[in-house]
């Protein structure tokens, strides 16, 4: 029976409660001075890895990973405060990395660090791509279970229930594999103050893109970013009859 050597990639994104604004030049969303946090789906990934250990699954270690600006270290510390053992940060200040590049980077990390289970969020709430986990599984040639709402590990076999259109389906695969988390998987814990203090002492290794020698040329060119056309509320009606007649007027009934 092999132990679980888990990799949890996390991404620093604009906090989910913040309403993003498009910048004046229409080239991107304004990020300066905006509150950032860990991508909510990645919190679920860390939580699940930690719960596996708490459920006495043979977890050898949990490595949290992030590629991005120096500030991403905050969320790696959060991941460690939640229970990850150590962290790896690939510092990249300038470029926004595309899912394919991240997947290639993660493939190297998986190989370097001898991982056998990668748990990612199903999508990041900034670019909403929903690709990285599947791409990584493809590059590694591993089994994948996306949008997991339940994960059970028994020996080196993983049984995963996943959210699909219209319900759930259950899959089983032997390690190594890639799992991506859906919202229903768990309820992430808050990092306690003592754990936040302890996390400051856990190892955080910094590397650069050059250390990995991957061609990170962007494949997609941003032509423009725009605000969606504003939707004007049509005002309120007094009662149910008013609602019905307005709906008829709008041709919805």
């Amino acid at each position, binding site marked *: 029976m092999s132990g679980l050597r888990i990799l949890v990639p996390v991404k620093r994104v*604009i906090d*989910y409660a913040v*309403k*993003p604004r*498009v910048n004046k030049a229409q080239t991107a*969303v304004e990020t300066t001075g905006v509150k950032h946090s860990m991508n909510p789906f990645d919190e679920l990934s860390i939580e699940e890895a930690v719960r596996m250990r708490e459920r006495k699954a043979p977890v050898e270690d949990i490595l949290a990973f992030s590629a991005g600006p120096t500030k991403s270290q905050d969320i790696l510390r959060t991941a460690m405060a939640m229970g990850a053992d150590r962290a790896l940060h690939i510092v990249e200040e300038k470029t926004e990395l*595309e*899912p*394919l590049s991240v*997947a290639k980077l993660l493939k190297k990390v998986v190989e370097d660090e001898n991982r056998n289970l990668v748990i990612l969020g199903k*999508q990041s*709430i*900034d*670019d*909403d*791509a*929903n*690709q990285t986990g*599947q791409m990584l*599984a*493809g590059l590694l040639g591993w*089994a*994948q279970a*996306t*949008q997991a709402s339940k994960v059970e590990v028994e020996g080196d076999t993983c*049984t995963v229930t996943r*959210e*699909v*259109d*219209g*319900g759930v*389906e*259950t*899959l089983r695969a*032997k390690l190594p594999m890639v799992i991506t988390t859906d*919202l229903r998987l768990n309820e992430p814990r808050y990092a306690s103050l003592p754990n936040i203090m302890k996390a400051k002492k856990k190892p955080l290794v910094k590397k650069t893109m050059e250390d990995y020698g991957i061609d990170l040329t962007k494949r*997609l*060119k*941003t*032509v*423009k*970013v*725009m*605000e*969606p056309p504003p*939707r004007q*509320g*049509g005002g*309120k*009606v*007094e009662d*149910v009859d*008013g*609602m*019905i007649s*307005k*709906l008829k007027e709008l*041709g*919805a*009934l």
Partner: protein
Amino acid sequence: MFSAARQTALRQARSPCLRPRVTSPLSRDVALARLLSTLAVLEQREGELNMSSLAAVSAAMKLGGSITGFVAGSNVKAVAEEAAKVEGLEKVIYVDNASYDKGLPENFAPLLVENIKKGGFTHVFAGHSAFGKNLMPRVAALLDVQQISDITNIESEDTFVRPIYAGNAILTVQTDDSPKVVTVRGTAFPSGAAEGGSASVEEGVDPKAECPTEWISEDLATSDRPDLATAEKVVSGGRGLKSKEEFDRIMPPLADALGAAIGASRAAVDSGFADNSLQVGQTGKNVAPQLYLCAGISGAIQHLAGMKDSKVIAAINKDADAPIFQVADVGLVGDLFEKVPELTEKLKQ
């Protein structure tokens, strides 16, 4: 015969040294449209073609060029023949093999890659459904291209429009990758006619890749109501319904009175009022019905992401300051436990 000749022409045209470049912009566009060829990945389930997956065909029609459908599974020839009647399709490729029935990406991705390479397609489109989301990034990675997810519009053969940040920004991206692997938002490309086409049906290549994943079981919510993602009308309930009992008492009669599908906010789903598969929003389903009528939903941005393209939005909420009223065409401030049953009664008349 004709298609074989066209394939050759296509291959030649792609290597600039073999053919002089056409310079006039207009004739170049015409020439370009002739050279575009899209593989539209279609979904099937137990021998039934999934009509919502035809959004891939509608999107390809908007792009121009030839369109080939693709289906795989056991005894899938009948599905291929059904798909051959879909307007816009020139050819349907099918691969008859039971190992593709569950759409597991571990073997379905290599299958697609083989057929994409063989057909020399310039574009590969699939719906941004659970199947498409699971499969297509794996295909893109194997082809070493950066996929473009959940597009809502096509500007040109290499430029696509998609929502980001839960629909709070609209991104236009351009790609030089080939082929261009794209998933399309079903509500943005309503499927056209499933009749009237006369595509040829052809067997595809089957690389028979190993699948390390075993499919165990599924549990699908059964419903006689219209499918949430494609329904003309949707009624949706939120936390304001207070309990599963109340949700089940209040919402289904309203849905029946309208012939609508039922949706729910994340709060309602998390509290166990409604099934997960009913969730509308950034992490649930995107809907764009003629009428979206919601009760007891405040209108968080994650929810709005999934429904703000609805033609008409109506909201009932007791909080006059709820953000839902900023987007609703018709708002009614009041107690949903009174107003919804009243509305249901009056609609029945």
